[in-house]
């Protein structure tokens, strides 16, 4: 059965490796120039000397050079990439058998169809976990100089530097496998799985994630003028501590009130969110196995 699963998903695995290789090459090229600039501008020294804006010129020149490349160009692609990867692998897993009639072949062998499915799911899930972990590692390494300035708690950076990335992929995969069994067609199953995945993904990011734990508040008296860094994405952030995730800044009289999630909650948040998506994945895959076992269709 292991060989059968491998043979059927071989081309997907190779395509995945190809994508990963392309990503790695891109990461090496960009990251090398970023690392060169980082040390050339002496930013490391600035950071050690003081947390609060003594190297503003150097930082803003570095940021203007790389932030658009690192933060924006990638964002749209990377937002949907884990979902695309998941549904592309997941949707055909059962739907293709139903589309081409090969389910009659596959499920009339001596291995019962539930074991056939369980083996395939275990192996493909394993493959996706490895791919997700590799992507996470490459992106984390690639962004490392930038992370030293901005931290990795922001939206769309957070999404790629921890277990959540793998969890997103698995969730899209699970939805797509289930949709494939229900809709019996690969392409409609991809669409039907991707849309709820994206909806949940965005809802979690913008509605739930800021509230995983109650945010902290930082008050600053600006009677004599505040630091020049105002705004949610400032470096260093309003709270003065790199890595804090600033949610909002409001001015009340002479005070600015900053609500934020402190940097040390990063891993806690990662595991909460990854757990949420893993639970969704398990529910979808569990439902698939149960439905196939009963198979009233």
């Amino acid at each position, binding site marked *: 059965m292991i060989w059968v699963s491998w043979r059927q998903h071989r081309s997907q695995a190779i395509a995945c490796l190809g994508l990963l290789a392309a990503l790695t090459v891109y990461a090496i090229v960009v990251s090398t120039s970023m690392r060169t600039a980082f040390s050339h501008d002496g930013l490391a020294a600035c950071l050690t000397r003081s947390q609060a804006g003594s190297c503003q010129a150097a930082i803003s020149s570095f940021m203007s050079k790389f932030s658009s490349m690192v933060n924006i160009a990638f964002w749209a692609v990377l937002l949907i990439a884990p979902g695309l990867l998941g549904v592309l692998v997941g949707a055909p897993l059962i739907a293709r058998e139903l589309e081409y*009639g090969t389910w009659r*072949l596959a499920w009339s*062998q*001596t*291995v019962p169809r539930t074991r056939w499915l369980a083996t395939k799911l275990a192996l493909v899930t394993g493959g996706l976990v490895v791919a997700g972990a590799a992507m996470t590692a490459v992106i984390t390494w690639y962004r490392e100089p930038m992370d030293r300035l901005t931290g990795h708690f922001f939206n769309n950076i957070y999404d790629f530097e921890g277990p959540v990335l793998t969890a997103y992929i698995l969730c899209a995969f699970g939805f797509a496998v289930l949709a494939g069994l229900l809709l019996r067609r690969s392409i409609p199953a991809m669409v039907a799985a991707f849309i709820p995945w994206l909806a949940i993904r965005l809802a979690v990011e913008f509605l739930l994630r800021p509230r995983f734990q109650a945010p902290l508040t930082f008050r600053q008296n600006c009677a004599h003028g505040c630091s020049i860094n105002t705004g949610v994405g400032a470096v260093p952030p309003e709270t003065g501590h790199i890595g804090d995730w600033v949610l909002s800044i409001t001015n009340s009289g002479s005070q600015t009130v900053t609500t934020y999630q402190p940097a040390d909650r990063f891993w806690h948040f990662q595991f909460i969110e990854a757990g949420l998506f893993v639970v969704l994945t398990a529910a979808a895959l569990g439902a698939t196995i149960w439905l196939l076992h009963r198979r009233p269709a």
Partner: protein
Amino acid sequence: MAHDDAGGSAPALRADRLGRRYGQVWGLRDCTLEVPAGAIVGLVGPNGAGKTTLLEMIIGLLEPTEGQVSVFGAAAHAHMAARLARVSYVAQDHPLYRDFSVADMFRLGRAMNPSWDHGMAQARMDTLGIPPKRKVKTLSGGQQAQVSLTMALAKRTPLLVLDEPVSSLDPVARLEFMRDVMASAVGTGLTVIIASHVVSELERLCDWLIVLTGGHVRLAGPVDDLLAAHRLLTVPRPTSDAELPGLTIHRTDSDRHSTVLVRADAARLQALGRPGWQADPVGFEQLVMAYLQRSPQTAAADDTAAAAAQPRPLAKEVTR
């Protein structure tokens, strides 16, 4: 009955009031059958009669809505693994993985079947001249059918089920395919169920017949018994059905005579001797066609009447 692991004494196939509903429509209903081991069974019926439904419930690909089906004593879900180990299946259009090579398909067969006979599979490909390195999608329809058949045979099960195995093949490929099926069955005690529209093929191969129309079994039993239980009568017009000895299956009226295919037990057929009446034995194809042409409504009414007259279902009665 008890679950018989050896499968020695159990019938190859036993169905008991088996039924399957699709939404509001019954695809198959009240199917009661007992096929002995070693039979070569022809399953005939128009499209949509429930042939594939019956076959898929035999394999375990489809769950019955009601009733039971067992293969060599291995019943439904409780013995799913045992059932799968006893039956191999060549589905309609012989599905294979198109981007696999023949050798890959066989490796899949070996991986998924403990009883797989790899030597036999390879030897058959050699005999047929199909190179194992060839991709499935580059093979002709006849070759693909042969690869499917080989996979089913190499599974080494006591029951082989074929669903329209030759419908997409040219006449020569048909002939070769059926010849190979028979060659595998002869002397091995293999039980074979073949669903097919090609009645003439079945006549040559089968010693058992099941006719299915409108989701019901209309006729089932050993071919010899069925032929013996039917006569083609030529009677002067007008002769009403009520005067005939037995049940009218099919009737053709010409100017002066009526030709009627009737079913009756031997004693009543013996007693038949009215002047001007002629009774001829029935051919296989004639018999099948008569049952296929009977409207499902008439057939249902007759079967209900027969069931009311006798407590045993018709199919079982003919079997014995």
